[in-house]
Every structure is written in C-alpha cells, then in structure tokens.
C-alpha cells in the first residue's frame, strides 16, 4: 500500500501531465549511481537512483520533483560478517514554480533549502565532483535539507557586466516522513560577473524553533576563462560550529580537446576544515574539530557515463581515517510521455 504522501505526489504529477503544454514535453531526468566506499577499514556499497520529474505547463508554470532511492549494503559487524542491506527513499523536493518574469519566480511546496550552493546546486549525484558531502553541509540546511513553504527568487538587477540574484524563503514545521522540514526563514544574495565568470554570495538562515539558531555563510564560484578550471568554495557558521571547503577541478580538455581520451579526464582536489562550537543535540555536523583533504580523478565517458574516484584523509580527535570512493554514474533524460521527444 502506498503511503499517503506518495499518492499525493502521483496525483499531482498526473494532473499536471494532463494539462502540460504541447510546445514542451514533461521529462524525467536524473542519475543512477553505484558507489563503493571504504572508510576507516569499513566497506559499504550504495546503488542509488535519483529521478527528477519536470512538468512545464503554460508559459510560466512548472512542477518539478526529485526523489532518491538508496540501497545501503554493508557487513553486519563493519569489516566482517555477512552483508545486509537497508533500503531508503526520500522525496528531496516537490515544488510548483510560477516564473513571473526575470526578476521574480514564486515557488511553493517542498524545496531544497537555498543556503550557499552545495545543497541546491552541487549535491546531485550526476553533478558533484566528489562523492562525499562537505563537512559543513549540515549548516544552514536544518533539518532535512528541504524546506516547506514559499520562496521568492530571481535576478534583481541584470547589467552587461554584473548580475545580482536573490532567494528569500519561509518554511513551516512539517514532520511527515517524506516532507520533513523545520520552521525557518532565510535567503541568499549573489553577484555574478559574467566577464570574469565569478560568482560571490552570502546566505542566512534563522531557525525559528527549539534553540532559534542563526546560520550564515558565504560562497564563491570561479571559472577562469584562461583555463578549464572550476573553483568552488563555501564558508558557513552557526552556534554548533563553523568551517569551510575549497574545491578545485581541472579538466584536461586543453590537451587534444574535450572528447579525446585525455580531455575526458578531470583532476580534483578539496581541502576542508570544521571547528566545533556548541552543538545542539540534533546537529549533523562532525562531533569534533576535523580536517580533511580529498584527491579525485573523474573520467567523463561517452553517453553520459562518468567515473568518479577519490581518496581522502580525515584528521580528527575521534580518530584519523582514510576514505576511498569509487562511483559510476549514468545521467539520463527521457520524455515522460510516448512521442514526447518529437
């Protein structure tokens, strides 16, 4: 028997499909991954499918939703014993968007909490360069990474040399299993300089229940036009702790082109630190001061396949550890209706 939330989701999507515009087609996209992780001598496997349903209708409307279905396979006693598995599923977001104009889009429903850039933009399995989330991913995204309520977003000012974008939201407390969210409000303001391919921004969240926490953060994304380099960084602060991460990814596309065997290779490095503050009981941040460094090699195969490999070393008073990751990801996109691609 389907849970009530899943039935609601299916009904909403079916209704929107019926009235979907003819000029565009509803699509299902997303990624499938197989992840193998060895952390501190313990190995686990994680096949995941993460579909995104996108239903545009009319000139201004859009329904979009992402779900994640994980199988978590590990040994019963960590490094020994028989394997056992745990199945997890979640609705990451289910939102209705009204694109009023360039300056304003109104979003209602369940949406990804827009704090800094990782949660909203980089976390999907077919996008992230390194399989493990940053140490500070839990700051500003309480309680589940999703919010329930309303959000306004858009480009406040657009000039030839710079753009100012914004997001502001309010979330209610919801404790339903698939739509878990805390009562909070917050926003993000970013400046993008197209000529420099540089984006800088700040984020803020006020958590309006329990201990009424403030979280704030800042981020940077830079892609210098002189080299195929992606540089991303975040800093976040809350009462429970503060930290940062800096990630650089270099694609060897300058050597024989992006589609050559060498041009498909990407080298990644990430450095991050977390400093423990006064943690709340339900914090998901590390339990001690932590430093971590990761090195990765990704390979972009044809047909939307990608291999991610990485090695990380984590230093903490709770015990240092090595983390090895191997991930293969397939990024897919199909029309939801028959004949939709024509």
């Amino acid at each position: 028997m389907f849970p009530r939330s899943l039935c609601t989701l299916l009904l909403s999507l079916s209704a929107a499909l019926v009235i979907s515009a003819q000029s565009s087609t509803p699509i299902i996209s997303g990624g499938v991954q197989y992840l193998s992780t060895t952390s501190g001598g313990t190995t686990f496997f994680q096949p995941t499918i993460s579909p995104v349903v996108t239903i545009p209708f009319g000139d201004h409307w859009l329904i979009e939703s992402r779900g994640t279905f994980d199988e978590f396979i590990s040994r019963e006693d960590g490094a020994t014993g028989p394997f056992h598995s745990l199945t997890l599923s979640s609705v990451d977001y289910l939102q209705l968007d009204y694109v009023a104009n360039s300056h304003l889009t109104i979003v209602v429903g369940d949406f990804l909490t827009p704090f800094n850039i990782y949660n909203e933009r980089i976390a999907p399995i077919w996008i992230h360069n390194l399989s493990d989330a940053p140490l500070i991913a839990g700051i500003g995204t309480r309680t589940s990474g999703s919010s329930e309520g309303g959000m306004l977003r858009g480009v406040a000012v657009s000039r030839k040399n710079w753009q100012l974008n914004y997001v502001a939201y309010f979330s209610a407390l919801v404790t339903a299993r698939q739509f878990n969210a805390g009562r909070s409000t917050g926003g993000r303001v970013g400046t993008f300089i197209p000529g420099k391919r540089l984006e800088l921004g700040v984020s803020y969240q006020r958590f309006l229940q329990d201990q009424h926490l403030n979280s704030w953060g800042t981020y940077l994304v830079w892609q210098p036009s002189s080299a195929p380099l992606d540089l991303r960084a975040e800093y976040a602060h809350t009462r429970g702790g503060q930290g940062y991460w800096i990630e650089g990814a270099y694609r060897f596309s300058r050597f024989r082109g992006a589609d050559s065997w060498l041009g498909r290779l990407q080298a990644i490095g990430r450095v991050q630190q977390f400093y423990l503050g006064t943690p709340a009981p339900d914090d998901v941040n590390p339990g001690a001061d932590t430093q971590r460094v990761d090195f990765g090699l990704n390979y972009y195969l044809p047909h939307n396949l990608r291999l991610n490999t990485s090695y990380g070393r984590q230093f903490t008073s709770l015990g240092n550890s090595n983390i090895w990751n191997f991930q293969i990801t397939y990024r897919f996109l199909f029309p939801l209706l028959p004949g939709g691609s024509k």
Partner: protein
Amino acid sequence: MNVRLASRLALVTLFLVSLGATAKNSAPQQQTKVSKSSPAQTATTESEEGEKRFERQCGRCHVPPEDLSPREAKAVVRQMRVRANLTAEDERLILKYLAP
C-alpha cells in the same frame, strides 16, 4: 612662430575631431549591418551567444546534456531558469543553443 604653432595645433585638432566623427559614423553602420543580416545569420549569432551563456551560467555546475530534442530542451531550460536564476533572455538564448 606662434601663428605657425597655432595653425599646427589647429590641424592636429581638426584631424582628431575628424577621427572622432568617423568613429561615430561607423557605429550606426555596424548596427545597420547586424539588423540587415539574414534570419539564418541571426539564428547562428544567437546560438553562439547561447553557447556562451550556457558556459557561463550552466557550466558552473555541469556539462551540457547530450541529444536533447527541442521540446525536451524547453523543459530543461525552464527548470534551470528557476534553479540557476536565469533571466528571460538567458532562457531564450540557451534554448537556441541547446535546440537550434
């Protein structure tokens, strides 16, 4: 001497003024050329500009998807307009690039 110097200065000034006037006149000519270009040329220019916008706006997070039909591209770009805070012009030009 002073008269000669003054006349040289006047000549240089006249030359600089004429250069400025030529530059001013050439700008509208260029604009006229663009506006008189064929629809195919305009589409190509817009597709190239769309590619630039894709690299700047979307390329910050991911590489372009492969093999999109025009109707699929429209759904993808609508979604990205919300997610990546694209303007209406960004949406139109990126669509020209993804589904020319």
